[in-house]
């Protein structure tokens, strides 16, 4: 018990120490030549234009919600896919029925225009 806590302690020290050493060393060794271009906020790609707090289109949430539902259904499909060869014909048909119901939901969302971005 105590020995495992010791391991955690050692890992903690090492994991805190490594980045600390790297940052301090870089601070000491690096040459310092500041310029206005260098001191702007770092962002990947080109500079942003206009307000950053834009409202997302409602469509964005709609697709997010649809994704959420379909994503979580895999929780049932995964165990079924792993073990369906041992479950017998009935379970296979059951799984297919489940996918069929999901497809029905997809058709409904599609037809209602949930995936149209315009």
């Amino acid at each position: 018990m105590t020995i495992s806590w010791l391991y955690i302690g050692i890992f903690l020290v090492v994991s805190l120490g490594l980045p600390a050493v790297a940052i301090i060393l870089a601070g000491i060794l690096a040459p310092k030549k500041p310029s206005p271009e260098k001191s702007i906020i770092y962002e990947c790609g080109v500079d942003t234009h206009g307000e950053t707090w834009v409202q997302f289109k409602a469509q964005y949430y709609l697709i997010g919600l649809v994704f959420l539902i379909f994503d979580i259904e895999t929780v049932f499909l995964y165990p079924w896919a792993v073990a369906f060869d041992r479950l017998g014909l009935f379970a296979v048909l059951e799984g297919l029925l489940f996918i069929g119901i999901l497809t029905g939901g997809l058709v409904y969302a599609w037809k209602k225009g949930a995936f149209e971005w315009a």
Partner: protein
Amino acid sequence: MSLSDLLILLPQAFLLVWASLLLLVDLFISKERKVITAILGAAGLAITLGLTSGQWGSRATGFNQMVVVDNFSVFLSGLFTLAGLVAIVIAYDNMRRTGIHKTEFYSLLLFSVAGMMLMSAAADLIIVFLALELLSIPLYILAGLAVPRAGSAEGAIKYFLLGAFASGFVLYGTALIFGATQGTSLAGIMASIQSGTAELPLLVIGAALLLVGFSFKVAAVPFHMWTPDVYQGAPSPVTGFMSIGAKAAGFAALIRVFSLAFPSLAGQFAPIFAVLAGLTMVVGNVAAVSQVSIKRMLAYSSIAHAGYILMALVPLADPSVAANSTASALTYLVVYGITTLGAWAVISAVENADGGDTSVRDLSGLARQHPWLAAAMTFFMLSFTGIPPLAGFWGKFYLFRTAIEGGYTTLAIIGLLSSLVSAWYYLRVIVMMYFRESEAGASRAPSIQIAAILLALAVLVLGLFPSGLFQLALQALANGVS
């Protein structure tokens, strides 16, 4: 699982398949012909009603004892499908008039009915939880069906938050019970309690959490705060369906769980049920008196009626009265269901076309313009009050009688006094309709009028021949519960 399991749940399975197909078929029905969707929805419910009543008299368990179909479940399934049918009839006219005719209503209603039916057949806490969610989630959406209207969204989000809160309690209670008894099937829980292997403290806490969760669903005081807002905000036909469907399903679960899984705990829970029932009756009736909006008034009245029914669950531990008291609860659910659906049908007809709130004043002078609607509403209000010879009187009579037989005379007296208070606000509606000058507008659609009149007739017939329904309720308990 096999095909025979599926046959046991045929009504529920059929309804779910029908609802899913309806959702898809509706996509291909043109806007002017949406009446087809309504008719198909009603047809689905009618076929389900036929299938489920065919199961009367037999008893079968399936899916590894996770569901049980007996007279109790058939009795309640009948109630749910009939309530759904009436809701469709009311909703078609009301939703078109108030400009919110969204045809998802029919599929969602069917899904919710299927959840309620599953709830009445649940023999395992997993099924109780799944059925609870299957019936609740469509109801959250239905409550928000009129969404650009501010009140509807507000009611829906409140219903959603408190409904999910209640589900959390049910779920955590189930988890603790699973820990205490190593199983979730109701029979297994009882066996574990009887053999003394159950961990009692954990079990009692779990059962108490379940009770809290279901109290939210049936809107018992002090877990009733959501009811007025939701009833006021939701479209009237939805409220009508919710006021009986969700309540009856909650009571179905309470009766099943407390009489099948913890009969030995029922004695310990009797005082809690008694306090809940007393509080619910008093608070519901007193708060209803001061309401201006008729939708809020009926919301508080539905709370009060939940209190009356809770009274029947108090003497559950006493085997000599248990059957009678549970049967009186079922009887009252039917009587209350018919009456409340009727009252909401009339409100749906009277509601303004903008779907705004309906106050008691909006009914004034209804008798002159719409004598049939006013007459039906009079029947419903008198039945709510419990005036003989209407059905409501007999419903209350059976409830109060079993409370007294069980030795809870005080509770019966509280119930009687609080229903005297209720007479004031119910009779105010009648006075408004008959003795006030004003032109109350209402829908002249024949479907809604016929529904209201038929329900009023049912109230009268059940009042004139009350024993038939009570005998049926007793039979419903004969081959399963108690």
